[in-house]
């Protein structure tokens, strides 16, 4: 692995914290261990790609609360829970809130690595999607207002003639706008355009 992925590790038990850090480091992760949830939240950097491995029951702020904080913004840090008390209600709540996995202590290395790599993949995927959307957004912002209007109508599935009637112009003009818009966005088919508009939530 050329670039080390970061794993935020939070557990109030120093022994467990140290052992899990050692294990994850041995696997090649860049581990940032925290025994205090508060300190972790203060130092948490969303820009760093990677995941968080959280203990569920901790004094002051427990794992589920940390998860809530971590998923409150745009960026959703993937979370793997490690718990001593694997009770079903807690695990259900955690999974519903988007946890990657819910592991019970003592955790086996394979399961942990598996969960962490899935989390890292999820993080990578979401980061890739995020950058894709950002570039698409940048392309959309280059469109003129008329081209933007045409885009909306095309995504809505209207024919050029219909669009022209709607906008009070002729079909030919619409065609020109349409080809220029497609060119700007770098999209060749209407299907791709629709997919992009969905992602960017541009249908309205």
């Amino acid at each position, binding site marked *: 692995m050329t670039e080390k992925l970061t794993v935020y590790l939070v557990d*109030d*038990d120093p*022994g*467990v914290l*140290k*052992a*899990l850090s*050692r*294990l994850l*480091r*041995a*696997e090649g992760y860049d581990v940032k261990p925290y025994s205090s949830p508060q300190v972790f939240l203060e130092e948490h950097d969303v820009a760093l790609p990677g995941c968080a491995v959280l203990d569920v*029951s*901790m*004094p002051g702020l427990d794992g589920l609360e940390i998860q809530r904080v971590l998923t409150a913004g745009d960026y959703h840090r993937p979370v793997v829970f*490690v718990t*001593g*008390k694997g009770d079903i209600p807690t695990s259900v709540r955690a999974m519903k809130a988007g946890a990657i996995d819910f592991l019970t*202590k*003592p*955790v*086996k*290395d394979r399961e942990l690595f598996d969960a962490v790599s899935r989390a890292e993949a999820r993080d990578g995927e979401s980061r890739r999607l995020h950058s894709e959307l950002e570039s698409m957004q940048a392309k959309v912002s280059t469109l003129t207002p008329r081209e933007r209007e045409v885009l909306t109508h095309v995504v809505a599935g209207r024919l050029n003639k219909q669009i022209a009637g709607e906008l009070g112009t002729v079909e030919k003009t619409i065609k020109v706008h349409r080809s220029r818009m497609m060119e700007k966005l770098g999209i060749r088919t209407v299907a791709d355009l629709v997919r992009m508009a969905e992602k960017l939530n541009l249908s309205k």
Partner: protein
Amino acid sequence: MDLYRCIFGVATFAGMTRTRIVWWSLVLLFLFAAESYAAEPRRVLMLHAFNYTFPATTPIADGARKRLLERSPQAFEIDADFLDLARNTDAEYESRVATFLRAKYEKRPPDVVITLDSAALPFIVRHRDDIAPNVPVVFTSVSPQTHNALRLPANITGIISEFNLDKTLALAERLQPEASRLFVIAGSGDVDRRWQSTARKTIEDRARKFEVTYLFDRSYAKLVEEVSNIPRDAIVIFLTIFADSEGNAFVPAQVAGFLAAVSPAPLYAPYDTYIGNGIVGGFVETLESVGVRAADVTLQILAGKDPATIAPQPNPGQSYRVDHRAMVRWKLQESKLPRHAAVLFKEPTIWTEFRGAVIAAIVIVAVQSLIVGALLVQRQRRLRAENLLRESEERMTFAAAAANIGLWQFDRHRNELWATEHCRALFGIARDAPLTRDAFLSVVHPDDLQTATQSLQKSFETEQPAVSDVRIVLPGEEVRWVRMRARSRSEGGGRPGQLGGIFIDITEQKSAEAEAALQRLEVEHLMRVSVLGELSGSIAHEVNQPLTAILSNAQAALHLLKQDSPDLVEIRDALEDIVHEDNRAGEVIHRLRGLLKKGKRKAENVNINDLVRSTISLLNSELIGRDINVRLDLENSAFLTRGDSVQLQQVLLNLVMNAMDAMASTPTAQRFILVSTRGAQTGIVDVRVKDRGHGIGPKENGRVFEPFYTTKDHGLGLGLTLCSTIIQAHQGRLTLVNDEGGGAIAVFSLPIHQPAIGNA
């Protein structure tokens, strides 16, 4: 004195000679006395009108003689002659008698002549100078009429007898106020006829009038017949009957007796001589009093007084006299008698006759009765007391046997033991074996023999009650517990000689105690198990943590080893951590095992601060799980107390758990438990557990230590009860109070055990 001794000294020789000597001595004394007075004795002649059988004169003569002897300063010669004039009334007889008397008293003429009865007076008047010329004469029983008729010479004086018929009648009227008829009886003799006229006159002069019948001059037979027909309610006055109409002579006193016997009505008479023969009585003079008066006059004359200057005088000694028997016979009431009336022949009662003896007898009888009564009462009491004692003894024996108690007593001096039969049963001593001290000691368990003997010895020495529990081995190898209570008693100071006491079979009590102790341990253990059960999840977590660390470290090490150039430093660190974490897990399990273990109480040094830390660490996960913040504020001192660490940890565990439970509804941010230790200065360590829960409600206050009292939904109500028991067993105290700032504070105080130097 010598004579006395001589007389009675001789008298002891023979009884016969004694009387003779006394007699002669008296005669000698008399002679000496007589010689010391005049050589010539004075002479008094008693001249009786009739013979000595005549009742009226003899008492007068006796009365006079007694008076003369009593009052006279000199010796007397008293002569008596009986003129017997009743039957002999002729002058020739008189002169013969006079001649005889002159001859008789010529040599020794009397100094005074006392005549007895009025008939003698005319005789001496006629013949005085023949017998003793001009001798003074003292007459008696002469009526005023006779006295007036005789015209006596100067030196003849005497006592005039005046019979007061009026007063006799008055007596009759008093006794018979309703009587209307009056019968008067008199004979035909000279005196009788005089009475007839006196009676008629007296009765006529009286104010009250009767229907009067005079029974005068009757023949005796006729008189008796008439008298026997007198009605019952009449008054009968009997005067005199010296002779009846037929000329028969009578003695009036005897006639009075006969007539009283036949008369249905009461008879009264003015003569004392009749009283006693059957008549009721009257206003009379006693003949003795006449004699006494005559003697007094005689003595005056003998003393030298001229008889001519002594006037004849009436007898002052007259009075009402009645016969009690006659009163009773005619049913006359004594209450109607005049005052000072003499009641004769009244049977003297035993009281009046033997007053002293009667009183003495009554006193003796009373005293004896009292003594007998007292003895009876005492006997009754003793019987009752004996009964009560016996009942009490029976009750006590029964109660003692029922209560499985044997009573005993030991006499040290005589080495004797008394014990109830129940003791025999208690100690399993054979029925025929003697109950001795050794017999009892022989069945005591060898291990307790010393205890038993020391206890008894101590009781002897200190005179304090001693109690000791010993085991006895019954013949069938069965062991039973017996409690001995002994108390010594010294008699009259010195070393106590008596030792008494009881044996109680306390086997059941002992086994119950043992069972209770066992049950308490069982309950304590159960409570620990139950607490740990509640905490099982948290405790599992506590073990799980080190296990997690161990596993992860081990796997990390394995992964590191797989690398091309393994980081050996990191691997070593991992292995060291594994060892460390393993120890940590071991500690938790050790603690758990201690709490789960069943066992007897131990006495060891317990560091209270360590105990607090260990307990809180055991609860760590639970506290986190319940979002409870814990702070320890432990005084920086090694508090050591003596006790059982498991039990003390159980108390602390309980108190912290209670604090946690109390904060179930406290907002998360406020959930807080403070555990503090204090007391390095005081010698007593206070461990306080303070929470911010709901506190103790007013209703719960004071009841929280009661067994089975709980405020929790799933509580047993034994936690605090057990905690309190445990702390008390450690000589400590557990209290639970509300904090002023909210929540409750539980405090237990334990004495600090000073460890040996260098051990702190």
